[in-house]
């Protein structure tokens, strides 16, 4: 019986591998890092949108089932290096020297967070109190408290700078898309700050707020109505530091008041965009997958109505390798890809 290769063991890859294993299909799961779970685990996310669960609650059961399943062969610290053949008979070369034969491939290579050092005017790496939303998540999840890195004190004011590395043509056509999660996560982080530190004022600097669908209330209105997070319309153009009072200044135009502003802040959180991961770009090259000409994210085939089916028969693309997506949808797409892969290798599915 033919087996399936799943590339990437983030939420999508885990969901795909778990699904395949449950169908009784031999599955090879590749992960370039040393642990399972992808970005949410590696970057120590604190609370996941939209269900406000911990990564261990959401991904824990998946990781456990994949690890315990006898159908899954797990290769950690391993990457895909070559692929020959066609559907039903792919010969894949791995970086650990092994060569495997698989009937279908699920690509779940995901995204990576934007590197804010590329936006020099925002002062990341220059001022210790300019941090990323990932670092804030880590503050919550690892250290359990909010502080200014410069002096370890509680900040009086926190600013969220939306769309860092998103919707930004200055970075090239690669970063013109929306990250989809930033607005909602900032609303959640702002609420968490206000909930635990009611004296800290939180400001969100936005161009527009995209908490789509059912996220509108819990991640946009609850922060304002229940927690008193303040929203200011205007993109932060520059972050400076005042030695006189040791505070940062966020420079922007308040586009509703139509006046320039340089407001003091103690902690500035950059809301990072999403880019296709290095792995996604590499795998696209190896497998000959179609990529969006601007963002380099993978795109599904035009012939199939499904957004899981790639331009190569027998290869399925799922999750954040196709563009920004939330974790719930990643899990669903992983499961959908498992189904497609199972159908391709024409296995009798036992109940």
């Amino acid at each position, binding site marked *: 019986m033919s087996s399936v290769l799943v590339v990437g063991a983030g939420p999508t890859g885990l969901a795909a591998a778990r699904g395949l294993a449950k169908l009784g299909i031999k599955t090879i799961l590749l992960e370039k890092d040393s642990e399972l779970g992808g970005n949410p685990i590696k970057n120590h996310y604190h609370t996941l949108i939209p269900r406000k669960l911990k990564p261990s609650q959401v991904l824990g059961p998946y990781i456990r089932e994949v690890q315990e399943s006898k159908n899954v062969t797990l290769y950690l610290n391993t990457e895909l290096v070559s692929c020959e053949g066609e559907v039903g008979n792919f010969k894949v070369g791995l970086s650990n020297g092994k060569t495997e034969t698989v009937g279908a491939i699920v690509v779940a290579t995901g995204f990576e967070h934007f590197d804010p050092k590329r936006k020099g005017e925002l002062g990341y790496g220059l001022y210790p109190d300019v941090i990323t939303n990932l670092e804030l998540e880590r503050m919550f999840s690892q250290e359990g408290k909010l502080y200014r890195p410069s002096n370890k004190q509680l900040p009086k004011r926190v600013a969220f700078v939306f769309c860092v590395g998103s919707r930004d043509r200055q970075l090239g056509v690669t970063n013109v898309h929306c990250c989809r999660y930033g607005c909602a996560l900032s609303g959640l982080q702002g609420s968490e700050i206000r909930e635990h530190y009611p004296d800290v004022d939180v400001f969100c600097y936005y161009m527009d707020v995209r908490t789509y669908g059912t996220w509108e209330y819990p991640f946009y*209105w609850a922060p*304002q*109505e229940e927690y008193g997070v*303040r929203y200011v319309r205007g993109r932060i153009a520059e972050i400076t530091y005042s030695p006189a009072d040791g505070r940062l200044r966020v420079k922007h135009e308040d586009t*509703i008041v139509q006046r*320039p502003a*340089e407001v003091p802040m103690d902690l500035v959180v950059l809301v990072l965009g999403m880019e296709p991961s290095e792995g996604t770009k590499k795998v696209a090259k190896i497998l000959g997958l179609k990529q969006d000409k601007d963002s380099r994210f993978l795109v599904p085939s035009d012939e199939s109505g499904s957004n899981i089916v790639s331009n190569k028969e027998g290869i399925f693309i799922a999750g954040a390798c196709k563009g920004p997506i939330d974790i719930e949808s990643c899990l669903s797409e992983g499961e959908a890809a498992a189904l497609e892969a199972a159908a391709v290798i024409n296995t009798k599915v036992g109940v």
Partner: protein
Amino acid sequence: MAIHERSLVEQERILRKERLVVDGVDVSGDWNLIILPRVIEDYDLDFAKEVAESPDGKTITQCYQCSYCTASCPVHNYWDDRYNPRHFIYLARLGMVDELQKRADVIWRCVSCHKCTHRCPKGVLVEEVLKVILRAMAKRGLIEEYPSKKFDKFFTESVLEYGRIEDGELLLGWVEKQGYKLFKDPILKKPVPLIGDAPLWLKQLMLKPIKSMNVGFLMLNAKHMLFHPRTKNWNKFKQVLRKAMEEEGALK
């Protein structure tokens, strides 16, 4: 020194000194003029909190700046576009008090038609929120005694004294307070607006209902002008009300 594009610079940002001495050096002349920048340097969050935390102002956090209120507002549409409920909400929410103060001359012009409140898709009690903003500004002395307040005071005094108003007294008394001279009959000292220096529009205004009213209603009005109507047992309640209002500082 001349200011180029003078129309773009607000008066309050111009600092000009007749004589200016810096570190002992007389720099009067070309250097005696400074134009302050337009930059917003901080928010007045105490003001913002005062508005958002008052019971009738808390719906201010629900606003998403769609401007349904402003589009419906007769004051904005037919009088002065500087009166903009949506904008006042944004400014108050961030405590941009200087911006609010720039509109202090129009911000009290709400006619309480409540279209904004009835139509707001987010359930903001716009009219109430604006009153809270006014109150917070008045408390800090940021807003002058505005003309319509004269009417409010006259109205309040009348209600406090009698428990109810008398239409003729209220109208004519307010007209007098606006600075018009009205002829008064020599015996009762009541204003007679149909003769003398009363403005033409007032004469016409008074004449119209008199022509069309039935005799009974005319008599009732005349009676009310002579003997001010009064709510039953008002005196006891008046004392309580006046005391409560004094304690709240509402009679200032």
